[in-house]
């Protein structure tokens, strides 16, 4: 996780063991702070009563207070990466992750930590009434601490979302490149979605692999589902065609819509001697003719082929 290596540029709270009253106050008034804090959280506009019940919130809050107290007591460490922070970080990470999964927004998640400010500050003010300097110091220390922990929850939240997104992207990639065997010797690759270099690579690999497995001599790439074809997409397509040809198979590009044909010409893309067809049905018919001529039993194949309903 990125937080481990230097996410916090600012120094961790310099709550000095000798002068800071924070741990003592946390310890002495744990019950009151917890009650106030819970009240605060329940009143907050960002509370999601639909996703969270009060008992859980109470447990989490108590746990957090206990850990915060521990950390402030062992406050010799200045570094947020120090092992004494491990436990509270783990607790916040778990909380953040579970809330991210439950559908909380980052703000709602961070409010858990930030809402501790008010009850804590009230308590500090009451304790340090006669000493404004000390009060200012303590407030600053507490603010830094809470900000740090609050931001950490956001960090973890975002991290878990990013992981989710990248996993979905990977799944999408795998889903969207099926190579199907249309007939003996004929493969089809219906492309859906935009082609970028990453996808082209995967498309190319799975197509070539399938060609080796099946020994097919014709591959049809159907781009009906490709929303736009720009120079980059065209280049990727040409690369795939070239690689297929190197393997010893022919490639047909089908499913070129009229607008796309116009775009290709306007862009000055040269598709060279690549066979192109308007629909998958045309391409399939062409491929059947081509392989039918090669095969001994071509006639029967062709007869069967013509009775196939068009699925383009």
């Amino acid at each position, binding site marked *: 996780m990125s937080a481990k290596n230097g996410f916090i540029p600012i120094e961790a709270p310099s709550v000095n063991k000798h002068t800071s009253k924070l741990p003592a106050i946390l310890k002495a008034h744990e019950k009151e702070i917890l009650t106030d804090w819970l009240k605060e959280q329940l009143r907050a506009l960002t509370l999601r009563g639909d996703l969270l019940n009060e008992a859980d919130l109470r447990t989490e809050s108590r746990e957090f207070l206990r850990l915060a107290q521990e950390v402030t007591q062992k406050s010799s460490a200045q570094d947020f990466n120090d092992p004494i922070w491990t436990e509270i970080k783990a607790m916040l990470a778990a909380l953040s992750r579970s809330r991210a999964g439950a559908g909380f927004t980052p703000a709602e998640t961070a409010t858990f930590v930030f809402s501790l400010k008010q009850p804590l500050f009230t308590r500090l003010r009451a304790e340090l009434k006669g000493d404004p300097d000390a009060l200012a110091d303590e407030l600053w220390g507490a603010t830094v601490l809470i900000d740090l922990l609050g931001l950490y929850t956001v960090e973890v939240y975002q991290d878990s979302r990013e992981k989710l997104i990248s996993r979905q992207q990977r799944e999408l990639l795998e889903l969207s490149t099926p190579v199907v065997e249309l007939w003996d010797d004929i493969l089809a690759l219906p492309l859906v979605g935009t082609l970028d270099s990453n996808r082209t690579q995967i498309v*190319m690999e799975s197509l070539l692999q399938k060609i080796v497995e099946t*020994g097919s001599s014709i591959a049809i790439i159907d781009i009906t589902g490709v929303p736009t074809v720009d120079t980059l997409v065209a280049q990727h397509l040409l690369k795939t065609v070239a*690689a297929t*040809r*190197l*393997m*010893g198979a022919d490639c047909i590009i089908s499913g070129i819509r009229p607008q796309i044909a116009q775009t290709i010409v306007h862009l000055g893309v040269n598709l060279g001697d690549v066979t192109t067809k308007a629909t998958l049905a045309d391409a399939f018919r062409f491929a059947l003719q081509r392989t039918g001529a*090669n095969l001994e039993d071509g006639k029967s194949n062709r007869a069967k082929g013509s009775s196939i309903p068009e699925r383009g």
Partner: protein
Amino acid sequence: MDRIPILKMGRYLLVTIQVDMHDQLATSLQDDLTEKIAKERARGVLIDISALDIVDSFIGRMIADTSAMARVLDAETVVVGMQPAVAITLVELGLPLEGVFTALNVEKGMTLLHRKLAQRA
């Protein structure tokens, strides 16, 4: 120094690359092959690279060059059995081997050679 054997089958020459190609091996193959085509008056050359799983730009150029040389000597060349990884590498290297005939396996390669020669006859 090891050499790649070139087998004669009727009017065709058969080259099977079974070992990892290094530059010198490639050059000597080119020498041997051109010589053999001239000597045997071969009409077709079939190069099987199915065991080749690593290529660089030199080997890629060598394949293209050999095919061009054979054509000058009036023989058609078919490269067969290219691995997917090799095909992708060559395309990414910008060497799509224009003008080289390819086939999926030796059998299809032979059929292609027969057809090419029949067309010429």
